[in-house]
């Protein structure tokens, strides 16, 4: 039995953790080593993530029993395709961002570098841990690590607004986490177990219990708060806008996606489809909520004059995509949702990378500063265009294909409102981005004359990272079919319409 435990499963999480401590120590000894060590740690977890994905595809689900205790007694890592894919996404994005953010950090936090990298690694650890764990309470603890490091990174951002945004995030985040904890508590009272698989097994007897229903509602609401689904999204735009560039770039794409993952995990692994779509009848409601989120996010994005704010509202509407897709209750919808987790992580990451490059040169990101940007920062803009097209959903970028599956699912599930919302959001995104492209192509009023002379292309490493990701968007698009067949279809639970 021991032999089946895959070492990478634990290396993945523990390496960045331990290195975080080393980085912290080195901060006091010799700061030059902090950055390389952080990169190495992140690299190792990336490699192990890839290893895990490969072995999951080859040999199926991985189990790892921490402390060597069997599941319900001890904590267990249980990695199936879904976690494996998300793990790869998380570690990739974090790694690329680490490369991209060297300049930002040395500019924004000179004498706290080491500690910042340590915090960054802890954030990474938290995300990976959340994704990899198979234990409800362990998930909560790691969620808190992630949130704590996110809170403090955001508070480090914009001096005037950062801390306030962060504090609001703390309040709402704590409410979300506590709701989730309460939900787990209710589950524990009724079942006496915390291991996901075990709970799932025990719940089959308790489908019609009110307590379990309440537990379900509270877990869901908690997760929705953390992922900022429409009415619960208030904290997100400010928090992500005023975060330091280096952090915002990784928090914005990953935090929400990981929470969506958690939602899907709870829905389909813990509670199971019979419970979701036969017993509790809230799917209709959630899909409507998601549709509203999509439209609302789009419209709010239209009304923004700051690029980063705009992007954050786009995230709000993208969350609507994934939640709606997951709750459509058919194969196509879920496929679309999972595929969109993959694609959207990279799309938003590319957008934020581009925004980072702009911020590095332009400072303020108000849209007027983008006049004639094409000629000033051609490469960055090229990457930005690809990312934008992908968000709009223009083939062959990956955004199109996830949207394709979502639309199919919506039509198959007869959720026409969701269908329309998706189409509308494509149109709105088109307006959003072409507004910027147009500014970039035409001189416009020239509000930025003072700086215009000085603006030049962003540093090479940032450009390379952006280029890498935006090429990746097209590649992901072209291989969408294979991705779906290898990674997603096998995960889809049986009996889903």
């Amino acid at each position, binding site marked *: 039995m021991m032999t089946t435990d895959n070492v990478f499963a634990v290396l993945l999480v523990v390496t960045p953790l331990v290195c975080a401590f080393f980085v*912290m120590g080195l901060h006091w000894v010799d700061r030059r080593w902090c950055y390389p060590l952080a990169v190495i740690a992140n690299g190792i977890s990336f490699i192990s993530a890839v290893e895990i994905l490969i072995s999951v595809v080859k040999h199926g689900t991985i189990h790892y029993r921490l402390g060597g205790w069997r599941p319900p007694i001890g904590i267990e890592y249980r990695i199936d395709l879904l976690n494996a894919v998300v793990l790869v996404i998380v570690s990739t994005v974090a790694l690329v961002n680490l490369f991209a953010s060297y300049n930002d950090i040395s500019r924004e936090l000179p004498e706290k570098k080491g500690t910042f990298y340590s915090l960054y690694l802890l954030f990474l650890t938290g995300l990976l841990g959340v994704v990899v764990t198979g234990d409800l309470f362990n998930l909560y603890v790691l969620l808190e690590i992630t949130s704590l490091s996110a809170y403090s990174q955001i508070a480090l951002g914009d001096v005037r607004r950062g801390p306030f945004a962060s504090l609001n995030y703390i309040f709402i985040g704590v409410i979300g986490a506590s709701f989730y904890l309460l939900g787990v508590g209710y589950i524990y009272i009724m079942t006496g177990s915390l291991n996901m698989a075990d709970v799932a097994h025990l719940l089959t007897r308790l489908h019609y219990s009110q307590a379990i229903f309440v537990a379900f509602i509270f877990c869901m609401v908690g997760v929705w708060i953390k992922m900022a689904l429409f009415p619960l999204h208030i904290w997100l735009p400010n928090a992500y806008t005023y975060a330091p560039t280096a952090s915002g770039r990784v928090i914005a794409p990953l935090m929400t996606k990981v929470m969506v993952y958690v939602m899907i995990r709870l829905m389909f692994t813990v509670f199971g489809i019979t419970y979701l779509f036969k017993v509790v009848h809230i799917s209709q409601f959630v899909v409507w909520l998601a549709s509203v989120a999509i439209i609302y996010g789009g419209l709010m994005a239209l009304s923004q004059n700051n690029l980063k704010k705009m992007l954050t509202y786009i995230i709000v509407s993208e969350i609507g995509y994934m939640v709606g897709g997951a709750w459509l209750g058919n194969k196509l919808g879920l496929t679309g949702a999972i595929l969109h987790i993959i694609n959207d992580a990279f799309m938003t990451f590319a957008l934020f990378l581009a925004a980072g490059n702009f911020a590095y040169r332009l400072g303020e990101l108000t849209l007027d500063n983008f006049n004639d940007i094409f000629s000033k920062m051609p490469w960055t803009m090229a990457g930005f265009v690809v990312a934008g097209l992908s968000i709009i959903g223009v083939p062959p970028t990956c955004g199109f294909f996830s949207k394709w599956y979502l639309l199919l699912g919506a039509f198959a599930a007869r959720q026409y409102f969701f269908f329309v919302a998706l189409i509308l959001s494509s149109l709105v995104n088109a307006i959003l981005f072409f507004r910027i492209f147009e500014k970039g192509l035409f001189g416009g009023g020239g509000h930025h004359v003072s700086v215009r002379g000085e603006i030049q292309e962003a540093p090479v490493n940032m450009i390379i990272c952006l280029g890498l990701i935006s090429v990746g968007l097209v590649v992901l698009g072209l291989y969408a079919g294979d991705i779906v067949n290898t990674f997603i279809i096998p995960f889809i639970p049986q009996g889903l319409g």
Partner: protein
Amino acid sequence: MKKLGLFVTIICGAILLYATGEFPRWGEVRSPASLHVSPHYIKYSVEETDVPNIVTSVLADYRGFDTMFETTVIFCAGLACFLLLRVFGRDDELTPEEEKGIFYRHLPTGIVIQFKKEDVEIRHKDFEVVDSKLVPYDLIIKTACRVLIPFIQLFALYVVAHGDFSPGGGFQGGVIFGASIILLAIAFNLRSAIEKINEKLLGILSALGVFIYAGIGWLCLLLGGNFLDYGRLASILPVDPIRARALGMLGVEIGVGIAVMAVMIIIYINIASAGRHDEGL
């Protein structure tokens, strides 16, 4: 906002209470929670881990992984406080006291002198500049603390070391130890506390503490077991696997103790002095 808050709370409360109907009564011996997993802990804790304090055995062994991250959370908090608050060098704006005049402390006696005239300057090894709020000087408190603190720290060590057999453990012990230092900082002043145990040391200790925990986990990994599988330590310790588990727990508890102690102090000194590391409260 108030109305909304009231509405939300009432809804939540109603939902939560509605569900309690199905709960087992309070103290019900046959509740699912006490029948499914926990019996295993109660029955086999001693046999499997040789630790009679079940809470400790579950905390540090059965669910040791949780605890490692719990320590990490603490570490993270310390890190965050440092990152957010610490300001290096004197920050420009002067506190009202400083505008009033310049304070000097006579180190041997600890008496603080205030000069109304700005131009005065004392260069003497017995005097140090007090750059912020004036701290009331109280002999009784100081003396009392001087006597108390060693015992507090001794007790802290006991709590850490004896966590296997009696209530206690790393967290409790660490907090007590940290409290002793904080008491020092309150009774005397922050600067003299920082002299005793300086920022750099604290930073390294906090990292070290958690690292001890994770390191023991790694050791088990290297010895061919799963992560945190203390049983494997038997191959390097002169004891049998069961006892090795107990010792492993002791080790991690010590790690936790160090980390918690360090972080408590970091948080205190940063928040108390708003990151300036001067007189403090």
